[in-house]
């Protein structure tokens, strides 16, 4: 009898979970804050500043969604998650969305039961070496000692790359990025490999960044994007189209500075539809008409967010590369607002 009570409780809990998951938008609106999962700290992507306010590229996505849904970019409750806790936190409903430079893979999308709503940063694995080594290409790294974080996909990519190029290497296993920096600088390994954005940020922190060179080869695809729970398509649409709005805004020339002018009405019907002065796109999403205006007002369009957090003017100093607009030879391509 006890067992059946226990199982019954579980079922009720499960049903309640299903019911609650069906209405993330209502939950967020009722709560008044968006619970957004971010990393516990990745330079340029999410980190608290000296006043305890979260800043970064991933953080800006959370703020844009909060602005679109709640009309307040600061109404975000940032939940720091680790590599282990991020997926459970999302699956269990502790967070409404996850923006934690997470690679979009088939198994995560299908097997873990999440919906990736898009890609906000196209990353790939690269190598950094000391300029003194005289290496100009990763194919010249035969026999090198390589610092590598254990238990990551980068480890597998590395093995694949060296095997495909018929080269050998000696791995130096390390646990964290911080440890890797120390080991690399101390000369424990010839090269350090991780995502290229991480390498750029790491190099920026060296006392002599010019002595180190990031090799041109990118040996893996790491599309990083925000994700939500599967099964609540309405909510997934909101996050997806908020991200799309930021990307489209850059393409259409809408910035945080000319937003008033754009809202006043333009000759471009797509801009008008996005700004909510024409059509009823906001209504279709279950949001107010000016949802995209608020999202862009939060921290600017995609290009502005990129420039402010990880762009070439920042210490991280990343070029747009693959993350440029499709019109500029990049991969950022928002579907039409119609």
């Amino acid at each position, binding site marked *: 009898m006890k067992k059946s009570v226990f199982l019954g409780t579980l079922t009720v*809990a499960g049903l309640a979970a299903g019911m609650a998951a069906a209405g993330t938008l209502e939950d967020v609106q009722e709560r008044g804050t968006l619970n957004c999962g971010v990393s516990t*700290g990745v330079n340029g992507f999410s980190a608290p500043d000296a006043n305890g306010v979260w800043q970064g590229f991933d953080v800006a996505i959370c703020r844009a969604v909060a602005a679109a849904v709640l009309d307040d970019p600061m109404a975000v409750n940032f939940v720091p998650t680790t590599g282990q*806790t991020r997926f459970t936190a999302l699956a269990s409903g502790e967070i409404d969305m996850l923006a934690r430079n997470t690679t979009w893979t088939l198994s995560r999308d299908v097997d873990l039961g999440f919906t990736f709503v898009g890609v906000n940063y196209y990353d790939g694995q690269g190598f950094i070496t000391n300029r003194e080594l005289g290496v100009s290409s990763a194919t010249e790294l035969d026999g090198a000692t390589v610092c590598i974080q254990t238990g990551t996909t980068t480890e597998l990519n590395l093995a694949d790359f060296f095997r495909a190029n018929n080269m050998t290497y000696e791995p130096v296993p390390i646990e964290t990025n911080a440890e890797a920096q120390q080991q690399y600088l101390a000369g424990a390994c010839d090269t350090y490999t991780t995502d290229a954005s991480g390498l750029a940020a790491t190099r920026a922190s060296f006392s002599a960044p010019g002595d180190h060179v990031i090799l041109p080869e990118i040996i893996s695809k790491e599309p990083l994007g925000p994700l939500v729970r599967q099964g609540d398509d309405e909510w997934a649409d909101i996050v997806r189209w908020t991200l799309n709005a930021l990307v489209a805004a850059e393409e259409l020339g809408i910035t945080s500075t000319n937003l008033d002018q754009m809202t006043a009405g333009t000759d471009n019907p797509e801009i008008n539809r996005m700004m909510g002065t024409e059509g009823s796109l906001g209504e279709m999403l279950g949001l107010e008409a000016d949802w995209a205006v608020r999202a862009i007002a939060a921290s600017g369009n995609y290009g502005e967010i990129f420039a402010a957090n990880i762009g070439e003017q920042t210490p991280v100093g990343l070029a747009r590369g693959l993350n440029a607009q499709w019109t500029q030879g990049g991969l950022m391509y928002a579907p039409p607002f119609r």
Partner: protein
Amino acid sequence: MEEHHGLNYVRTEMLGEQAPPVSEVGAVRWVRENLFSGWVNTILTVISLAVIAWAVMAIGPWLLNSVWEAESLAQCREILAAAGAVNEHGTFGACWGVINDRWHQLLFGFYPPELYWRPILAFVLMLVALAPVLFPNVPRKWLFFSVAYPFIGFFLLWGGTVWLPLMIAAGFVVGYIAARLTSGYSTLITSAAAIIAPLIWWFYLMGPVTEALHSMIPIGLEAVQSNDFGGFMLSIIIGVTGIVLSLPLGILLALGRQSNMPLIKTICVVFIEFVRGVPLITLLFTASLLLNYFLPPGTNFDLILRVIIMVTLFATAYMAEVIRGGLAALPNGQYEAADALGLDYWKAQRLIIMPQALKISIPGIVNTFIGLFKDTTLVVFIGLLDPIGLSSAIRASSDWQGIYWELFIFIGAIFWIFCFGMSRYSMYLERRLKTDHR
């Protein structure tokens, strides 16, 4: 006789005291006896001195080149380079600017700065509340404050309505009243009433009553969410709560394990062996991940509260075994003497057994406390920002990426102060109790 007068074999006056040989006094003697008393000790001394000298030579210049006024690591390096503190690896010097810039985060996490007085007041009051428990010459009346402190501390740290902690406290009054009302019946009924009545109060009645009272008389402080807790404040909250709760619970478990009642004994043994057989990190992951699946979404079961419960359970099991060691060390005669005096079980425990068993267990108890306090840093793995977690969060900002030692030295120093304080207190306690019973 005259010529013999000068040959005086007996002294008429005492010789003045001579100074002891140089090798038997003061620093020289201490050095000879303690550092160079044999060839093994001499070699060890020389080696130790060499190691110390090497460490000072290595760290000294780094510490001497300290920079306190810097906004970022880059600026710090500019200052160092301008001062000429450069070696083959780049600039060489400690950059304490990071502590200057972020000390408040390492201590308080993201607690709103204008409310820092609340955790500080809570900490000072905690010391006041602990005083009568720790030191004998503090007036006994202060114990009332110690009992009330958990509610005061909760109110100060989390804020919100004043009625919530008051109503939680009222639960104990409810339990007491229930026990008094049923005192005519058997002990079993009384104990059951004393446990069930407060549970009903806490789970079903307390919420509406609190809301009603708050709407009538809205007194309270600005509420602060658990998410904003971090740094040493978080470590101390988890550590102190775990320490304070684990001792009484551990005593109960230890007694339960020695009980003659099979059911109680089995429950206690299973609990202790289960918790001791599982790593703390597993329990923490259970608290942060697994519980979420079983609780209906939307139930706002605070993560810090879940962690505190798990840490307390973990420490309780260890504490129970430490105290069982103390109980086992008591000669059987003590138990028999208590029986012979006609004391009932609880009186015998309170007056005869526990004072002696606890005294024996002091080193083990304090050991567990210190271990528990340091284990609080494990919460970094479930994404709570304790000092270690914050150090990586601070490193993730562009300003301070690439800084290590300064943060870890600062964190280590504060942990050392707390743990060393606990260990000194336990030595004081042992000395005091020894003289009491002599």
